[in-house]
């Protein structure tokens, strides 16, 4: 009985966390923070691969190791793919495998063609029965609890190949794109995509790298109007890395995995700029943000430096990251001219 009462309290916490993890679509894995995208060691090689030459060895059967370290064997090129996260849906479509995607989760809202596909998963659950009925030869799931572990186990028990993808860092996203390239027989496309993404992000990062002094940036991930709880990037999060690359001195929660930051701590860190990550589930106006209790202590609020950005492009670990980085960089450095997208 006491449990029931407490569950109610906990439900709120879950909803909030869900919004954060869902919004970021990546969660916050511990990873060594890499402030900039490492230049591709095989840039020359990948440029060669980018030219339309057929792959030298037969691509299937192939055994790949997914982000959780599970070996997944794919006997032939997948013809029916189920994508269970918005990010992997974007990657698959960008790699030209979109016509082989037969179903997605209900958060897959991009690109336009993907929205017409049937949904077999919500944020909270996967309809295993529906997935099985589609007879997929590849299911791409999200790690870090994005796709419930129970559903992944169940699908694998039923001999459905499941590849679990999660990117703890920007470099991890690029690796994931290449992993999905191998899994879908589109390695050449994947490699040229990641090469272009690397180049684009490096160009943006180096354009703002020399700017100083770097403003103390608080990326507003979420706010609970009832309790006043404030959500910010965790230390090791993907989002913290993005803000750093975009030329900001990122304010994090001080813990590798925690997304909540106490108001006092935030006042002590005194953000000079608030980047308001808005998405369909969280879209307060800058005015509303400025009126939050205690927030007038921030330099950013006093100066009116609250800038809304499209959170999805910045936090969804997919092919639109360079777009997100541009958005973020121009929000932090509005006067810097960024190099044109390649």
């Amino acid at each position, binding site marked *: *009985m*006491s*449990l*029931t009462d*407490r*569950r109610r309290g*906990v*439900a709120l*916490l*879950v909803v909030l*966390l*869900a919004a954060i*993890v869902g919004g970021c679509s990546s*969660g*916050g894995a511990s990873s060594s923070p890499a402030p900039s995208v490492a230049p591709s060691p095989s840039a020359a090689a990948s440029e060669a691969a980018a030219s339309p030459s057929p792959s030298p060895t037969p691509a299937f059967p192939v055994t790949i190791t997914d982000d959780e370290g599970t070996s997944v064997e794919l006997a032939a090129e997948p013809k029916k793919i189920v994508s269970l996260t918005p990010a992997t849906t974007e990657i698959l479509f960008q790699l030209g495998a979109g016509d082989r995607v037969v179903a997605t989760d209900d958060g897959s809202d991009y690109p336009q063609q993907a929205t017409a596909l049937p949904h077999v998963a*919500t944020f*909270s*659950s996967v*309809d*295993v*029965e*529906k997935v*099985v*009925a*589609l*007879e997929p030869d590849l299911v791409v799931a999200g790690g*870090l*609890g994005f796709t*419930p*572990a*129970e*559903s992944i186990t*169940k699908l694998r*028990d*039923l001999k459905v190949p499941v590849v679990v993808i999660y990117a703890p860092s920007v470099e991890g996203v690029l690796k994931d794109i290449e992993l999905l390239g191998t899994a879908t027989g589109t390695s050449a496309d994947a490699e040229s995509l990641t090469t272009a993404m690397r180049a684009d992000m490096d160009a943006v990062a180096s354009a703002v790298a020399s700017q100083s002094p770097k403003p103390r940036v608080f990326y507003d991930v979420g706010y609970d109007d009832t309790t006043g709880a404030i959500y910010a990037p965790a230390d090791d999060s993907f989002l913290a890395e993005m803000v750093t690359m975009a030329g900001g001195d990122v304010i994090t929660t001080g813990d590798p*995995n*925690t997304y909540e930051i106490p108001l006092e701590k935030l006042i002590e860190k005194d953000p000079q700029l608030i980047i308001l990550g808005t998405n369909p589930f969280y879209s307060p106006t800058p005015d509303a943000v400025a009126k939050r209790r205690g927030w007038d202590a921030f330099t950013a609020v006093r100066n009116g430096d609250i800038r809304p950005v499209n959170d999805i492009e910045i936090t969804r670990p997919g092919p639109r990251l360079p777009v997100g980085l541009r958005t973020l960089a121009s929000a932090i450095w509005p006067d810097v001219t960024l190099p044109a997208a390649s």
Partner: protein
Amino acid sequence: MAAGALSRDVEAGGLAAWVRARPLVVGAVAVAALLLTLVLGVGLGSVRVAPAETFAVIFSRLFGIDIGVTVSPATDVIVWDLRLPRVLTAMLIGCALAVAGATFQGLLRNPLADPYVLGTASGAAVGAAIAVLLPVQLVVVEFGLLHGLAFVGALASAWLVFRLGGTGGAGGLTRLLLTGYAVGSVLAAVLTMAMYVSGVELRQIFSFLLGGLGGSSWVRLVVAAPLIIGSSVLIMARGRSLDGMLLGDAAAGHLGIDVSRERGVLLALASMATAAAVAISGLIGFVGLVVPHVVRLLVGPAAHRVLPISAIAGAALLSAADLGARLVGDVPVGVVMALLGAPFFLFLLHRSRSGYEL
């Protein structure tokens, strides 16, 4: 049907007595409901499978008979590996919780007792939370650390409450109940802390707390079944002791029942059934509290009637609720059960104005 019988009884005064004198009729209705939920549960789901295909799968898998309907491998998996074990698991868990609930209510002479009254729920939840937080992936024949620690946690907390609360004396029951509450509170605090630090693993703990049958499989069913069926049968075999203890400890003693020993055995058996159920399906509420009351309203308090009919009715209720939950997009089964079951229970309670005692 049963509700109709009761409602007319208020005026006529005879139908409730008629039903009460014929527990076999109530039992038969419960069995019919059970069979109906079995058929519907296997036949319906989020994917449409034709009845002929469903029969084809079941006949070929069960008896090796090909009834001449071609079935795709996907359909075969859906019917045989997803739906059937899930429906049977729902029945098994429903049976376990209803029998355990009836036992605890009778033993503790408390209408609010449910299978989790000895802190089993909190114990299992803490076990599950620890399993989720430990960076260990251990799977032995489809049973992960979560199942193992939930089972151990449930039994350990029941044992602790029993040791601390004791069983003897007139105040013994109150003491046992309050001990259960106190131990449960400590464990709940530990659980809250575990959830607070769990980060992205929170959802896994939360879904355990909500309970559900999505993880059902043949292997899990086969492992849990002997524990649950075994303890349920052993409880039923002790129906006379339960009846005696309903009269009070002194009266039971005069009937020749070794009260403290029997109470210990019954608490252990009911805790075992609860722990096995919780390990597989998480915390499912309502069924264990309400089904025994409904059955008592219909057939009276005698344990040899209440226990078996509760077992069947609990199985039917949980599998029906799970079917409902699956059909509306896999919402938590406890939600469906309480939304549909509680009004029915209120109706029965309201109609039986003659008064109702355990």
